[in-house]
């Protein structure tokens, strides 16, 4: 909206109008006086009535009434015999006066009414056009600051109103979005009521200034996006009350603009997130490729030494075996570090599916193969264990890390037990061994990165295994904790939300 096309306020009966009325009546008298000889008095009456009509059209109701009385008086004084006196010889002129006054008043009223209607129609039309233009501007707004500026200009120019946009922050406190808005007296509690209830709140009577602000919720299709405060400035203290329907419309237009901007922001941040996610995963997979390729060669070449012909000496064979073991250790360390980077770098994308816990346990035991060869493993799951929704690859990692730990610390030939059950909305799985258990003061810290039960111990590891387990279980919305069994041995328990498994139709 341009500043040079203000919306006119309704024409009021100004003192100027009365002055002009006076002049108009005098002129009529002056014009009619010379015609007195040639015209019948009835036609002079007509001239006065015409004047009243014109005054009514031009200046409204008040001046029309004045013109009516003035016309009768002037007519009586200057034209009805005896002239230049208010006395009347013929009583029938009284009827003329009465009729003249009545006609003048009625036509005046009607004309003024028409005038007012025309005025208000044109005002409405201008307001509608201004509102439409503002909506168009809002549709092009790119920031919330622009929205606020457009609204403020619109109201200031046409309605003698100030406005402030209040949007909720993370704690749902309504904050004005522009510095300028702080000059308005804003009652936070009214704003909050409007925001919570989604209904306009007005504090005309409560503010103590004799006039008050209106708090309109920004009701967008999805939810209430904030509150817009309308405060009258000094020109018209009642502007808020008078313009209530328009302000309600305005609020919903602004609400839609705010919501649109919200989704623009969401789309942009999603875009950024996708790009950075893609970058991260391509870096990680390149790193993984570059680190694993030489390790693969190392493991394979060490292995193939064993196949060399003629066969190597026993000592050289041992060296080859050691090479292979070390390369595999390095590889698992690299794997852990890359996993940790992946899990810590941002939101983990889980490929959750409904499946059996038993299956992942089996797969983990199969993967660990040789490293579990020196231990007995017992899996005790209830027969009616439900399907659980999880990312199989990641939970397999949890089992592998926990089983590997158990095998590392528990004495050979001891029993590693895996048990599971359902407990109040969670599926609980524990892996217990018969080793030395965790140091009692460290049971929580163990899940931090690079924390080991016994620092610098001879048992290989860097303390990432449990941290990875926790990151994975956390991502699933579960919990993981360590404890020692009363009869000795370490026990790690983790939970996964059990949810509502999908139904499987039985075969007919």
């Amino acid at each position, binding site marked *: 909206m341009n500043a040079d096309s203000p919306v006119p306020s309704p024409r009021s009966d100004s003192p100027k109008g009365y002055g002009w009325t006076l002049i108009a009546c005098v002129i009529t008298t002056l014009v009619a006086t010379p015609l007195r000889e040639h015209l019948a008095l009835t036609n002079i009456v007509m001239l006065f009535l015409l004047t009243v009509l014109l005054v009514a059209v031009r200046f409204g109701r008040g001046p029309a009434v004045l013109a009516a009385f003035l016309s009768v008086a002037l007519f009586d004084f200057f034209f009805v015999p005896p002239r230049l006196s208010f006395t009347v010889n013929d009583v029938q002129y009284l009827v003329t006066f009465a009729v003249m006054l009545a006609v003048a008043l009625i036509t005046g009223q009607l004309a003024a009414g028409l005038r007012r209607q025309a005025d208000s129609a044109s005002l409405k039309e201008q307001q509608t056009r201004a509102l439409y233009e503002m909506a168009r501007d809002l549709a092009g707004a790119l920031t919330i600051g622009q929205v606020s500026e457009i609204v403020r200009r619109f109201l200031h120019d046409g309605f003698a109103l100030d406005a402030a946009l209040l949007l909720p922050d993370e704690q749902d406190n309504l904050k004005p979005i522009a510095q300028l808005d702080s000059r308005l007296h804003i009652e936070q509690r009214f704003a909050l009521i409007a925001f919570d209830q989604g209904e306009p709140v007005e504090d005309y009577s409560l503010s103590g200034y004799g006039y008050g602000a209106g708090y309109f919720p920004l009701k967008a299709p999805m939810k209430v996006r904030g509150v817009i405060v309308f405060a009258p400035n000094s020109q018209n203290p009642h502007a808020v009350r008078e313009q209530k329907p328009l302000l309600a419309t305005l609020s919903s237009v602004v609400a839609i603009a705010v919501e649109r901007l919200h989704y623009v922001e969401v789309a942009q941040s999603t875009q950024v997130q996708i790009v950075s996610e893609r970058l991260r995963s391509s870096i990680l997979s390149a790193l993984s490729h570059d680190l694993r390729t030489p390790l693969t060669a190392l*493991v394979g070449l060490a292995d*193939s030494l064993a*196949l060399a012909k003629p066969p190597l000496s026993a000592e050289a064979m041992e060296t080859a075996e050691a090479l292979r073991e070390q390369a595999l250790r390095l590889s698992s360390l690299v794997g852990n570090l*890359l996993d940790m980077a992946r899990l810590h770098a941002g939101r983990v994308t889980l*490929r959750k599916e409904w*499946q059996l816990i*038993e299956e992942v346990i089996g797969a983990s035991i199969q993967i660990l193969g040789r490293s579990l060869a020196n231990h007995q493993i017992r899996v005790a799951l209830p027969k009616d264990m439900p399907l659980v929704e999880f990312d199989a690859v990641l939970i397999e990692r949890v089992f592998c890390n926990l089983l590997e730990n158990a095998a590392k610390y528990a004495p050979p030939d001891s029993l590693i037990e895996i048990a599971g059950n359902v407990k109040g909305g969670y599926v609980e799985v524990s892996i217990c061994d018969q080793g030395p258990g965790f140091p009692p003061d460290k049971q929580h810290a163990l899940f931090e990165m690079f924390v080991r039960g016994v620092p610098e111990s001879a048992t290989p590891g860097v303390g990432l295994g449990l941290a990875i387990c926790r990151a994975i279980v956390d991502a699933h919305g579960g919990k993981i904790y360590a404890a020692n069994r009363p009869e000795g041995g370490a026990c790690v328990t983790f939970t996964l939300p059990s949810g509502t498994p999908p139904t499987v139709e039985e075969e007919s």
Partner: protein
Amino acid sequence: MSEISPSVVIVEDEKQIRRFVRSALEAEGCRVFEAESGKQGLVEAGTRKPDLIVLDLGLPDLDGVEFIRDLRGWSAVPILILSARSTENDKIVALDAGADDYLTKPFGVGELLARVRALLRRQGKSSESSPVVSFGDVQADLSKRVVTRSGEPVHLTQIEYRLLAILMANPGKVLTHRHLLREVWGPSFVESNHYLRIYVGHLRQKLEADPAQPKYLLTETGVGYRFKS
């Protein structure tokens, strides 16, 4: 294995990996041909008519999956994938494109040879496939649709039987979830992974000594299942 030594083409850009894979396979009695790029690999596969292709998924010149699709256009030779990528999705795509099995780097010579043997054995067997398959204490007669465990008949439902038959028909081959769902339940079930999970669970209950530590119906986590005879 047949009397003449089987031939294997290795498609891998890393020289040291080619070297040890070659020496391991030669020690196993294979004739080995090397290719260091995908295009060269396709040429080798066309001219040597190998019994097995060992393919690295991360080739510099050609995406491994494209290699497989191209090859599958004119050859049914078994493909063993070597994958450095740990994301399951790459493996699934490669397997769905027609690869038979995969090894994740790093792998030992032992694992490599076990996979190679399984694939070569299958290749040799396909002409004279016997209707009776046995594993552990289970015997399955596919022609009579009878499955027994320690001589006792085992009752399998229609779906359980179909699932078992498909797995047994592809020993050593990794069958993706999607593939199994489509073959057993039909195309409209390819997203219903939990069906597959439940029915594999049933088969293990009925056929494996310890269902939690299966020896024959193996899980390839995030990818699919493999029948190991």
